[in-house]
């Protein structure tokens, strides 16, 4: 029976869902304290024999995946939104303008997937923590790699890493260049997001302008998100931005320009100045909550 390993930096029921789609027995490995070379070395040992290794779309998974595949003599593809039992992975290319189906040629197939692209499933209860020291034990299946010697160390993690992940958000309220400055995000969009239990995001233009933190950026050069609802406020919808939200279940927009490309991708929306719409919207939402 072939084996599918899911590598978890946090609970990720979508990965268990993807593993079901691929088939085979499912084994889960949890990773706590992450150090790149050390974890890679330990994972090479822990994943030996697997046909498929699935990871999520966090920074650590993306960093590990190609190297893990290389060391195990497998192959790798990332940012998958679908994977079939015969190891064909669907992903976007050319900044979301095209879509490719990629056939992996060697096993193990190491694939990192876009968060929330698969229906959640139960993570196997016997999920094991990665034993980092095991790779250094004389009985390890493969000799310890010389790079796992502490020459590369993460020495500091910023407090900002306490924030919830945008990739896991069910609802996202996102602002663009048309917001006009940091105040609009603070006084208009944040209270709206609170009412909806949503997380905040932004286009590249708003992040580059320094109005909001770079961790908010959605798009080809930012995060790829798959919320149930993405509300784009004062975002025109350039293809680079759309590349980050192609897997959103629903897109809604508020934009002053009726010809803005965002309306071609929207399920519903309003053509008007967000400064007029958002206060009214908040008022109505507050009433509905009563």
């Amino acid at each position, binding site marked *: 029976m072939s084996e599918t390993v899911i590598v978890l930096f946090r609970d990720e029921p979508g990965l268990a869902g993807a593993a079901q789609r691929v088939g085979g027995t499912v084994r889960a490995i949890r990773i706590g304290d992450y150090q790149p070379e050390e974890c890679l070395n330990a994972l090479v040992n822990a994943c030996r024999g697997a046909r498929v290794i699935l990871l999520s779309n966090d920074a650590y998974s993306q960093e590990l995946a190609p190297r893990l595949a290389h060391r195990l003599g497998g192959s790798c593809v990332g940012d998958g939104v679908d994977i079939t039992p015969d190891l064909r992975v669907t992903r976007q290319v050319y900044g979301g303008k095209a879509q*490719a189906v990629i056939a992996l*040629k060697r096993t193990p197939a190491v694939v990192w997937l876009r968060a929330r692209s698969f229906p959640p499933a139960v993570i196997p209860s016997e999920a094991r923590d990665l034993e980092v020291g095991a790779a250094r034990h004389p009985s390890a299946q493969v000799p310890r790699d010389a790079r796992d010697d502490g020459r590369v160390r993460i020495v500091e993690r910023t407090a900002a890493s306490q924030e919830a992940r945008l990739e896991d958000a069910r609802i996202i309220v996102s602002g663009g260049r048309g917001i006009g400055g940091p105040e609009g995000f603070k006084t208009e969009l944040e209270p709206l997001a609170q009412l909806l239990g949503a997380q905040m995001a932004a286009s590249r233009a708003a992040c580059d302008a320094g109005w909001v933190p770079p961790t908010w950026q959605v798009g080809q050069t930012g995060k790829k998100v798959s919320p149930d609802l993405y509300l784009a406020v004062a975002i025109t919808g350039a293809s680079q931005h759309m590349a980050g939200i192609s897997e959103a279940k629903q897109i809604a927009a508020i934009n002053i320009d009726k010809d803005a490309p965002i309306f071609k991708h929207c399920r519903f929306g309003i053509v008007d100045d967000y400064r007029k719409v958002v206060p009214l919207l908040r008022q109505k939402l507050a009433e509905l909550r009563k």
Partner: protein
Amino acid sequence: MNILVCMKQIPDPEIPARDFRLAEVGSMNRVADVFSENALETALQFGGTITVLAFGPPSAEDALRKALAMKANAAALVVDDGNADRDPLAIAQVLAAAARKLGPFDLILTGRESGDWGAGQTGGLLAEELGLPCVSFVDTIEAREGGVRLRRQTETGFEIVEASTPVVLTITNDEHNVPRIPKVRDVMAAHRQPLTTFTLAELGVDVTNRWYDVVELTIPTKETACEFLTVDELAQRLAEVARA
């Protein structure tokens, strides 16, 4: 320090979606990939002797000339023989072979991913091919005793990583590494600078795809009809999703 920056030339990502045809990808205007340029900018700010390296069609020379105009010190091109769909392993093996000929290097930089295929694997695979450690999503490099101190981005914040050299880094964008615009004078001068070229045969690398094959490439038609709503209707719809 000796620094190698791997550059990639890609079809212009600014081409609007409505004008994008898969059959025309080969003849589209090509530009230097922005993450490659972020990598070069990060290297320039850090300082050292910088060599830029590209693997691609002869036109990739333009991206290298621009890099020289931005004040890279030397440039090398591995001329591809026409296949545009190299898989990441093949690309990394070619770059590794060229790096061995041009090196040794203390730092080897690539972009985080490219704007065309965006596989995001070149840096990691290059590290494996060269037997080096790798740190991804770096946006700032500082010198420290015996190596470098790096700031890198995670999905929720930043991390500081200390690494000894040699090491492979993949570079992401932030407000500090926006690529500089070269001076006109330097653009002119860049055209007179030497460029090392290698053929695949000279490097002796077999570039058969072994990692994966692209079996389908399509332009998805996903236009939806937008339903225009009143504020009250929009509030209702949003509240429904929020309650679900």
